[in-house]
């Protein structure tokens, strides 16, 4: 078979079979042959080995100098005609594993080769990243038109959806693969974490799962020291996935494995400990969550590996205390969170914590402190750069409705409008939160018709989507009906909520909560006492399974109330136990009501009076004026039975004052001028808080809107207050100072007067 060219042949024996690294030698030999025929072919063979799959457009991107179309097509045809190029099931090509390995080995053999390889991988990562970004746009558009497609071309939807999903996932995985190849523990890990957390935040857990799997495939075979750390990250994100699948036990099992390892990186240990806490919060196991978050705080004690999020952990701890209705502990945690935010100059965190503290103070009836903290929070929100300002301002607006809405209906309207403008374009949960707190404020001030209108609008916006939020809205409506005295309708809604929770195969928590609400509504209606018991017993079983003592206590009170209403006072007392369950856990209201009425029924009138006073203290502290009026009325009755006439008269007088206040609140009516002013204010605050291509024009427009607001309704000081910040944005400190002093004058007599006056005297608002 000799053709006379044997003498030109290189020494194959030497070059490959005897080589120290036969793979690299094989690659070198191959490249040498190809170069003789066509340098472009040689280059294509090399670069084609870098991606896991390729087509002509990808290789065109990878070659060093742009060849002519003809030149490239010819070389590409030759390449794909070689026996080591295989076609994949997706129609693209790949290099035979043996040859690919050889080529990659050859790249890795020299510094220049390694540098070239890294450059190629970077180019591939960028290429796939771009593809992925485009696929995200398409995927979003597909979701938008999905329903329409089903109507016009149902048969094609499955194939189209599959194509869209693949187009989204595959480039993401390839981009990640190439970044992992370049720098597994550095940019590779960072990119993985960013991508995973992006899709996690979008609740696209299937994408997270595939990304995690492929990332692990890439790192599993690494042999350097980083593999242990990467494995720990892998476990950490498995916990994320288990939580996404609502599998708390599995999440904690993996976390236990990870946390038991002695050499886990502090950052991973800390974040994993955080996930354990969050898994328990999700299951409403607050007491355990509290123990776990204390471990997390202890991990941060000496050398906090993640100081920027330190404030957030204290904020979370405050949230747990709030869920346990431990106001003092909540406040203590919030102060720690505030301190942590300030120590890291985290103004977003600082504003959020001041706002939370303001809410706590308001709940406890300390409106002056609440006002001062609210103004401090607002000052930060109005001076934060966009877009951070938008989220903070929205949170504060919600908190203002929550804190002051029940006592100042005008403020509920104003800040609801701001929150609405600030949450425009946001997700559905933000929308429901804004409308929910507003409905609560309207309910508390007896504006039932308006509250129903708001809920109607929310439901209309949902259509048949957003199951979780739909359930929340049902709950708001039931509470509203209850407040109106439409107890039977409230019962029906609570039943629907139970059905909805079951239909959604909701968590035990959601079903138990719905059952407990239903039982609580039913226990007040004579012919639904059996239903109340059934719901209570089912809920009790679920709370017990979850180890949620608070839930168990709530349904025990239902059982007691049912016994009382049936005249079984001994049974009621047995169910109530010796004292209010879980002191300071917010369960006392129903407990004291039932305990007082049970005691009154058996003529232990002094005991009944004691319980009623305890109940009143709780209600007054929480600003629940309507419930307080109801309790005072009953207290007057019991005092009269007890022969304590003078005391009864005193309570009746206080009841009268309270009724005057409630009547005044009930007379509040929104008018066109204030509505128009609030609209201008909402637009202005949005312009000051969200990103704009022309920030100065946005600030100027905000000034004008706030001027219009003051023209429409000159009374409130808030419009001037906001306008001062709009002027600050324009750098006009003179006008800012003038206007904030005007705001301070207008605020005279309110709890906000002093803090605004203090602000007006700061250097920010003076020309010097």
């Amino acid at each position, binding site marked *: *078979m*000799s*053709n006379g*060219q*044997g003498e030109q042949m290189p020494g*194959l*024996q030497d070059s*490959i*079979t005897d080589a120290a690294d*036969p793979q690299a030698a*094989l690659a070198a*030999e*191959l490249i040498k*042959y190809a170069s*003789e*025929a066509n340098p472009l072919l040689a280059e294509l063979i090399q670069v084609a080995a870098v991606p*896991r*799959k390729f087509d002509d457009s990808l290789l065109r991107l990878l070659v060093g100098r742009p060849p002519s179309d003809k030149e490239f097509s010819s070389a590409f045809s030759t390449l*794909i005609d*070689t*026996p*080591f*190029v295989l*076609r*994949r*099931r997706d*129609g693209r090509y790949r290099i*035979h*594993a*043996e*040859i690919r390995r*050889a080529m990659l080995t050859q790249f890795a053999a020299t510094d220049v080769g390694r540098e070239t390889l890294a450059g190629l991988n970077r180019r591939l990562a960028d290429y796939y990243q771009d593809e992925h970004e485009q696929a995200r746009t398409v995927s979003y558009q597909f979701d938008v038109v*999905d329903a329409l497609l089903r109507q016009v071309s*149902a048969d094609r*939807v*499955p194939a189209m*959806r*599959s194509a869209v999903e*693949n187009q989204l*996932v*595959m480039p993401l*995985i390839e981009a990640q*693969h190439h970044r992992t190849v370049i720098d597994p523990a550095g940019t590779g890990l960072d990119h993985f974490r960013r991508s995973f957390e992006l899709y996690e935040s979008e*609740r696209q*857990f*299937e994408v997270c*799962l*595939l990304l995690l*799997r*492929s990332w*692990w*495939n890439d790192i*599993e075979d690494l042999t350097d020291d980083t593999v242990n750390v990467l494995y720990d990250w892998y476990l950490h994100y498995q916990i994320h996935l288990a939580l996404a*699948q*609502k599998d708390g036990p599995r999440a904690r099992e993996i976390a236990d494995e990870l946390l038991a390892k002695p050499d886990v990186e502090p950052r991973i240990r800390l974040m994993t400990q955080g996930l354990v806490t969050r898994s328990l919060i999700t299951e409403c196991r607050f007491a355990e969550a509290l123990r776990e978050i204390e471990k997390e705080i202890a991990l941060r004690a000496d050398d906090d590996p993640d100081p920027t999020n330190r404030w957030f952990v204290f904020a979370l701890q405050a949230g747990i205390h709030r869920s346990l209705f431990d106001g003092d502990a909540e406040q203590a945690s919030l102060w720690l969170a505030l301190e942590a935010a300030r120590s890291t100059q985290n103004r977003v965190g600082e504003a959020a914590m001041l706002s939370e503290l303001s809410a706590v103070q308001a709940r406890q009836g300390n409106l002056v402190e609440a006002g001062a903290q609210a103004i401090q929070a607002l000052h930060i929100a109005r001076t934060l750069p966009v877009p951070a300002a938008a989220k903070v301002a929205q949170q504060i607006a919600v908190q203002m409705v929550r804190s002051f809405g029940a006592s100042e209906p005008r403020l509920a309207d104003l800040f609801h409008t701001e929150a609405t403008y600030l949450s425009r374009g946001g997700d559905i949960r933000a929308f429901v939160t804004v409308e929910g707190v507003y409905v609560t404020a309207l309910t508390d001030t007896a504006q039932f018709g308006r509250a129903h209108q708001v809920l109607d609008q929310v439901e209309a916006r949902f259509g048949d989507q957003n*199951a979780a939020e739909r359930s929340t809205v049902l709950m708001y409506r039931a509470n509203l009906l209850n407040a109106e005295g439409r107890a039977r309708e409230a019962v029906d809604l609570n039943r629907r909520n139970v059905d909805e929770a*079951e*239909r*959604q*195969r909701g968590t035990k928590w959601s079903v138990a909560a719905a059952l407990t609400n239903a039982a609580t509504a039913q226990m007040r209606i004579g012919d639904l006492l059996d239903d109340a018991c059934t719901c209570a017993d089912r809920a009790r079983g679920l709370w017990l399974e979850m180890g949620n003592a608070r839930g168990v206590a709530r349904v025990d009170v239902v059982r007691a109330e049912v016994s009382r209403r049936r005249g079984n006072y001994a049974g009621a007392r047995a169910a109530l136990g010796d004292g209010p369950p879980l002191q300071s856990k917010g369960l006392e209201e129903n407990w004291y009501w039932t305990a007082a009425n049970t005691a009154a029924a058996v003529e232990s009138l002094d005991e009944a009076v004691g319980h009623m006073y305890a109940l009143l203290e709780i209600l007054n502290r929480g600003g629940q004026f309507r419930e307080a009026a109801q309790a005072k009325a009953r207290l007057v009755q019991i005092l009269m039975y007890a022969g304590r006439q003078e005391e009864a008269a005193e309570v009746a007088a206080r009841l009268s004052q309270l009724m005057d206040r409630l009547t005044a609140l009930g007379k509040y009516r929104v008018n066109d001028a204030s509505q128009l002013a609030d609209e201008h204010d909402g637009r202005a605050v949005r312009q000051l808080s969200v990103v704009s291509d022309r920030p100065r024009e946005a600030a100027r427009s905000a000034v004008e809107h706030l001027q219009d607001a003051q023209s429409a309704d000159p009374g409130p000081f808030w419009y001037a207050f906001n306008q001062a910040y709009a002027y600050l944005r324009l750098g006009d400190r003179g006008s800012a100072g003038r206007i904030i002093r005007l705001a301070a004058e207008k605020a005279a007599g309110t709890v906000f007067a002093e803090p605004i006056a203090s602000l007006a005297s700061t250097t920010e608002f003076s020309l010097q």
Partner: protein
Amino acid sequence: MNGPAGVSDFDPDRFIDREVEAKRFEVLLGLATPHRILAVSDDSGWGKSAFLKKLKFLCDFDHRIPAALIPLEEFDDCPDELELVSDVVDQLTEAGVPFPSFHKLNRQRSFHDSGIFVDSLRGIVNASNASISGGQVAGTIFNIERYDSVGAPDWTDEANRQAKQLCLEAFLTELFTAAQQRKIVIIFDNVGSVARQPQRWVLKTLVTDRIVAERVAGHKLIIVMAGEKLERQLRSLFSDLACFDLIPVLGVLRPEHIDQLFEAHNLEGLPSDYLALLRHGILAREVSLAGALTLADVYCKVRLKPK
């Protein structure tokens, strides 16, 4: 150039030897032994993939047995069991094995509508005598009894995940139902490649749970798998290898086979001393078959091309 996975491009005339190994496969097809899985190990580049293609070819054209050939390494960019199963289903459907339940469920899944999906599931559970357990197990989103009493849930990411599991179950049910009646071959190439989760599904769910644990008795399903370190992997996974026929390494080609191979690839113009060196390299396992053929091919294209 080789074509897409499958044997449309497979040229039996270019395939040399491996008669011993092919014979072992045919013994498996006879179902006379407890072996249901042929596992081929060898280093990369020594002809495993070509051998698997030959087996697929034998099934398609000699034995007329429905067969699917799945290169697992191609799932590196989508490590999803359902993707893999869809590929198996497509190939077997084309070969005459229907998977109506799988097709129906998978199609309904893509509508992202729980009601439609549960309706399909109900029909399938009834039709298959409740063999798809997911339809009845309490706690799953698509529990039919709960659907009847409280209605269909909304489509969520978790619903999608569970729907995928039910599609996989439907596939397995239909596969083993069909394999009670007729022989079916599924061939997995590159077991041990980067697509670990699809591979885990193959080894755990299909092989361990359904074949090795003999959950499905009397079936005629033959699995062929190949991978670089497959033998070691299987020995570490299974204490009892009664179901397996292991080929730890493909047989050494004789010199004349190597010559035939080069000839079959139209490489006869190769200089004799060069051919001798390649032959020597192959016999000594210093150069893989794939490497040698590649070198020879490029050499012929470059050095022997008409001037």
